[in-house]
């Protein structure tokens, strides 16, 4: 939980806190009052002793802490403790001051009674986090604390790199250049369309044909990595890429059935491009794992966000780019580090929003811009790292033939047909 010097709780923050507290068993009003007054303490408008007295009884009541009292803090000890940033989890309680005691209390009171300790922790965690967070005196709080803080939305935007995309559907004209570039760069077998561009019509969005380029969403909460029995499908820690270790994968295809987006392509037969034609730079990443280019037979493949480029193996200048992005002449695909406010996906989103300003002179309540964004199947809880600008296809949307067909571009749309031929020829074919 980050320390925040801001004293005023903006009203919408308070709304958020209210929602958060509503989800706990904990008394919402008490929690909000605590949070508000805790901030007044930080601002020097309220003394700690007064704060303590004001809430002591109600806290005892709420948390069932009936067999231990918090001593009123000694004013000297308080003064001594003010400079220190005592962790609330630190149970010493001597000079740490009242806040530490309160922290202890909220974390769960009676060390002899495991059960009530647990329930107090659960109930108190959210409110404790809010109240003490406002005071800026939380060091290492209890286990429940982190969760509450995370849910309150702090600390999400992290350090390090998190590769992702902003794909602007309003710019895409369905030329399929990105698909071709991907196919060539990664030596894909026919129909293994790691990048796939939908042309679709949606009766809810008028007559025109819309386009949606679909990569792997490189989900932060990816079901595919969770279900992989051998850990072959994994999230690379350094930059959030979701990759498949071709040396470990047993080809069970569990990742494929668990992915809500249908982006996985198994190597059913021999790959169209033989191993000998692909050099190691494309295949082995900076950790020495075989995760790049097309998979070998019997192993799962999917979009890698051009891991070879991100590792600098195709030259410094290719870091932070992808083949599809490079091929797109319509400025639809923007790849980069989502943690960097100046990266192409973030900058594009910002600039695009600025260019689509809403008329707020007459209608002050409107939001600043008219740009709508979405993530695919957000409600599945996968937390994708690809954000789309434009309108999400509705349930009634259906795929149609685009202005440029896959065949015209030398691509195969229906992999099943290739596979069926292979099956008939008893594998004499490749795919």
């Amino acid at each position: 939980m980050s320390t925040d010097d801001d004293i005023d709780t903006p009203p919408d923050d308070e709304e958020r806190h209210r929602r958060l507290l509503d989800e706990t068993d904990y008394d919402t009003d008490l929690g909000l009052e605590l949070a508000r007054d805790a901030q007044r303490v930080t601002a020097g408008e309220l003394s700690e002793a007064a704060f303590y007295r004001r809430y002591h009884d109600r806290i005892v009541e709420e948390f069932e802490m009936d067999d231990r009292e918090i001593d009123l803090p000694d004013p000297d000890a308080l003064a001594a403790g003010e400079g220190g940033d005592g962790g609330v989890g630190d149970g010493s309680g001597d000079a740490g001051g009242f806040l530490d005691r309160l922290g202890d209390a909220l974390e769960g009171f009676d060390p002899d009674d495991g059960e009530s300790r647990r329930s107090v922790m659960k109930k108190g965690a959210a409110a404790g986090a809010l109240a003490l967070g406002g005071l800026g005196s939380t060091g290492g709080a209890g286990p429940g604390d982190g969760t509450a803080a995370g849910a309150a939305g702090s600390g999400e935007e992290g350090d390090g790199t998190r590769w992702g995309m902003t794909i602007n559907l309003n710019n895409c004209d369905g030329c399929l250049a990105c698909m071709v570039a991907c196919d060539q760069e990664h030596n894909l077998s026919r129909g293994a369309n790691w990048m796939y561009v939908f042309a679709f019509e949606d009766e809810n969005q008028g007559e025109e044909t819309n386009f949606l380029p679909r990569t792997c969403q490189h989900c932060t909460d990816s079901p595919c990595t969770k279900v992989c029995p051998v850990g072959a499908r994994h999230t690379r820690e350094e930059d959030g890429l979701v990759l498949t270790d071709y040396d470990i994968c047993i080809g069970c295809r569990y990742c494929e059935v668990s992915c809500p987006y249908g982006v996985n392509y198994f190597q059913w037969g021999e790959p169209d491009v033989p191993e000998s034609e692909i050099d190691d730079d494309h295949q082995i990443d900076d950790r020495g794992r075989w995760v790049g280019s097309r998979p070998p037979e019997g192993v799962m493949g999917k979009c890698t966000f051009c891991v070879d480029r991100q590792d600098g193996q195709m030259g410094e200048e290719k870091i932070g780019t992808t083949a599809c992005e490079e091929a797109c002449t319509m400025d639809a695909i923007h790849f980069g580090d989502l943690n960097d406010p100046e990266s192409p996906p973030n900058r594009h989103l910002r600039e695009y929003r600025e260019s689509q300003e809403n008329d707020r002179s007459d209608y002050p309540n409107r939001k600043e811009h008219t740009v709508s964004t979405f993530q695919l199947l957000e409600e599945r809880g996968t937390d994708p790292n690809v954000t789309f600008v434009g309108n999400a296809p509705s349930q009634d949307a259906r795929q149609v033939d685009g202005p440029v067909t896959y065949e015209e571009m030398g691509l195969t749309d229906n992999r099943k047909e290739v596979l069926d031929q292979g099956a008939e020829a008893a594998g004499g074919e490749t795919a």
Partner: protein
Amino acid sequence: MSVDVTGVDRDTLVRPIRTVSTRYLAALSVALGMIGVWLFFYLQQLRHGLIVTNLADWGSGGGVPWGLYIGAFIWWVGIAHGGIILSAAVRLLGMDTYQPVARLAELLTIAALTCAGIFILIHVGRPDRLVTSVIPAWPTRVQWSPLMWDVTVITAYFVLTATYLGLTIRYDLHRLRNRLPNRLDPIYDVLLVGYSETEDAVVERMVWWIAFAIIIMAPLLLHGGVIPWLFALLPSMAGWAGGVQGPSFLSIALTSAVSGIIIVAAAFRYAYGWAELIPEAVFRGLGQWLGFFSLLFLWLQLQQVITGIFAAPTTLQHATEVKIATPLYWVAIGVVALAMLYVFAASLRPSLFSLPLLVALSVGVLAGTLIEKVLFVVEGLMHAHFDLYAGVPGAYTPSAVELSALVGTVGIVVLFFLVVSKVIPVVELHAIEDHGEVEG
């Protein structure tokens, strides 16, 4: 309803071990032939890869990445789990009537688990890595991947069942040793190593506890838990997710297992003239269990269909509508319903009971549950929440290679029983002699 078969002598029990008939040899060659057919096709898969199946990638291409192999895997595991649950129930609740078929159920469990394992082996793209990838990953992946839970639990139950069987067999072998052929002595020596009659009491307690553990864990870890969780926990497919899969899978497992036991027991009864040893009352009882489990099966199917079509979310509704528009689904439901109606009718009017008819219906039920399982996997995959792909749902009909694996695994089960019945008594001594009176 208790049946007394204690009049049957020990020679009857060892009859299969001491005779070799031409019919036996014929059955043996059929089983070997079935396995041969499968091996012939499987070699193609080994040579060319999984492309020889009709599986494909769901998504832009359409088709299903999991198909008959996974459906058959669940089916065999269901038979195995149901088998061990029933045998455990017999031991735990002292249902003496079914004692003559308890060991058959255990043997069926071992055979069916083997077949389930084979289906995993042939399902994966890199069977050569099953050991090298799975074992190092186990400690870190077991808390995450439902597939790893499955592998773990299935292995555990294989070991448990084999132990259970091994322990109870020692008791019988020791007492029947003088009736068993000398040429198999080396095998018996191994099976009986370190045996003394003082272990009987301990073994009996151990077996009781293992049975107890199996019954307690059945809904949690067997077919009511880890197997359905393979599907029920996924966010991607409308027809899979949800809490009803656990009970539903368990009902299917029990239905299939009773059918399997009926068929195996009837085959032995017919082949070895065991009308006394496995009397008709056993089959009447098993038939009633079949009826009861079929009822559960149908009830849980009804739950899924109703919740899937009445004001359901669009994707679930679509998946359910497709399911109930599939004729094969109704074939599956139909045969199970038919079996249920027949056994209930035969309970009311005992004269309606006919063993051949019950066996035929059991075969039908097994076919029905297999169909249901395959449809569950395949149709589940065809109706994802994300349905923008024109290629989805694609089509899937199992290829000859895939179908041959079914033939092969049935052959393996037949072969297993043929071989095992020549070595150990497939009906335990306790069935014909009370515990107290059995002396050397």
